């Protein structure tokens, strides 16, 4: 019964989807928005990576919301896993020497790579979220190697707050500058393609990168049974 009902629901949905997609050809022309962004993105925001100019320029407010969503998840997960009784300490086998040494060796390199990704977010593929995820993966590796090395709680809290506040305050700074709106790019845009270009975009991406790195590390920490 349940199977039949579910299949019926799915079939109806599939039929609906087919009717719509006949009108949206695959690989067709660019939308009005898309072509506008590709043509004007570099002049408007100074970023050579048009996806970045959309993410932090035209749709920067979405990204503020996105940062908030991740913040909510990190905070909520912490509340969820800290709230109850502490999990009984599990028996953990010590990691082998290869893993321990290897993770210690790779850790700084991974951090460096993550930082590279978010610093160059406006020039090359990548950005704050991707860089942050890479940094968190470095911490995950270290946790696998040796469970006692953790990101300090005070550090984590200040980076989380600092990153979020940087974003909001830069937006508000744009508001105070004459003739500008919230999150408008009030710094000089520079020459697209150079490292120091695109005004506030690299600053925001560095802030996001650090914040996301810390938050995802916190998520991993909570899921692995970290205690506060």
């Amino acid at each position, binding site marked *: 019964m349940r199977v039949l009902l579910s299949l019926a629901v799915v079939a109806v949905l599939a039929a609906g989807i087919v009717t719509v997609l006949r*009108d949206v050809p695959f690989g067709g022309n660019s939308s009005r928005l898309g072509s506008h962004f590709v043509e004007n993105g570099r002049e408007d925001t100074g970023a050579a990576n048009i996806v970045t100019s959309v993410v932090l320029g035209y749709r920067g407010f979405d990204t*503020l919301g996105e940062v908030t*969503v991740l913040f909510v*998840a990190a905070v*909520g997960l912490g509340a969820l896993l800290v709230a109850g009784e502490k999990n009984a300490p599990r028996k953990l086998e010590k990691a082998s020497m290869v893993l321990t040494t290897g993770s210690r060796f790779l850790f700084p390199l991974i951090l460096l790579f993550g930082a590279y990704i978010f610093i160059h977010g406006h020039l090359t593929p990548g950005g704050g979220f991707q860089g942050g995820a890479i940094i968190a993966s470095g911490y995950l590796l270290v946790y696998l190697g040796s469970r006692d090395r953790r990101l300090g709680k005070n550090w984590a809290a200040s980076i989380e707050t600092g990153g979020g506040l940087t974003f909001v305050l830069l937006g508000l700074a744009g508001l105070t500058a004459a003739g500008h709106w919230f999150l408008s790019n009030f710094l000089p845009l520079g020459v697209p393609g150079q490292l120091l270009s695109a005004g506030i975009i690299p600053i925001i991406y560095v802030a996001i990168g650090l914040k996301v790195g810390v938050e995802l590390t916190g998520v991993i920490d909570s899921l692995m049974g970290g205690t506060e």
Partner: protein
Amino acid sequence: MVNPVLLLAVPMGLAFTVPVIERITGRVSRWVPVAAMLFNLVLCVRLIPAVLEGPVIVQLGGFVPPFGINLYVGPLGLFFAGLIALAGLVISVYSLTYIRTGPLARYHMLYILLLVGATGVALTGDLFNLFVFFEILCISSYALVAYNGDRAGLESSVKYLIQGSVGSSMLLVGIGMLYGIFGTLNMADIARSVGMVDQGVLFVPLIFMLGGLGVEAAIFPMNAWLPDAHSSAPSSISAVLSGIAIEVGLYAVARMVFTVFGISDLFLFLAFLGVLTLLIGEMCAFAQSNIKRMLAYSSIGQIGLILFALAVASGVTVTGGLFQFVNHTFSKGLLFLSAGYLIYRSGSMEISSLQGMGRRMPLTSLAFTVGSFSLVGLPPFAGFPGKFLIVRGALERGGTVIVVLTGLVLLCTILEGAYFFRVVQALYFREGISGGSGERAPAAAAVAMILLMMLILALGAYPQFAETFLRSAASDLMGAVEHVGSVL
């Protein structure tokens, strides 16, 4: 003039500072929501004159719509932002003392962000931005429902999460389809081009989006999560979820139907769905013996009533529906807040264990009674003008089907009265049973409940003050053409 974007940016910034504040001193963080919502309330009041002259359009990042995201702060958006700020303020005062255990700082952060998400949904003029704020609202409510960490909270939260995520996915599919069809995400831009596209093609994304938003709004076939989640959450969170979260979901549905799609063929179906939701909610509420579940089902009923009012789509009923939004936020908030301490005192959620509470907790019982009477729609309280406007408008509108549906609405009011009077009777006219703790409602909770009672009485006594503003909000909701004209 003050910029409406501060309504979102400042509370968000304050929430971001809480982790550091918590590290420095643990006692301050619970005041942060109070400060944030007070700020929002003052800002909303200061924005009223400007908004009544014409909607305020905020171009974020300085890009002209449809290329950038815009906020659309019309009377309706400001009405919701103000309602959220006011209810959020009162409930945050209540939580100062109500929430005592668990990771307190995290509770307050999530609480602010839930309200930020709700405000964002109310103000945004961009579909994808709506989705993002919707997710902020949803994810923080998943976490807050499970805040107590007990079995019931976790179970209901996980159910809520799965249904909510499927809903959000549907919403995102709908948004993606609309982007494929129109090549834009701006609501006004879509509303402008909606007439040029085959209506049959639009129907599918509309269903996807209404299905997705309907989960959060708890419209009939998609509301299985609500009674569990609202009854298992801490009472302050139940008040926010019932009073704000589902109403914001319904607001988003109304925005889609009225502004973005402008489809009037669907109204009769929605009115029917509204009455069905109302009937099912009230009948289930009648059958409950657990007080919080009863209140949760009653929220489903109220949502159905408001959906019906909006779907009849005459100026009077929409005004009445918006009035009912206010009334439901205040009364259901008051009911959950007072129920929170009644439950603390009696140690049980069963209605039978509340017998004789009227003498042991006079203020809290009075608050519960005022809330019930207002929700049922008795004259001196805020519930009366709203229901009166809805029924009057629906009868004026005429048509056999609408009249029959209105009759069913009135029938449900009787049902509603029956189960609320049962509780009030237990509170005052039954011999008390001893047991439970000797807990009294502390000062902060008393202040919150008295504030809500005064608001309900004031609205009931002088509905005309609110009505003028609500009438312009109603025309804001129904005027898609003006919306397009002012944004683009």
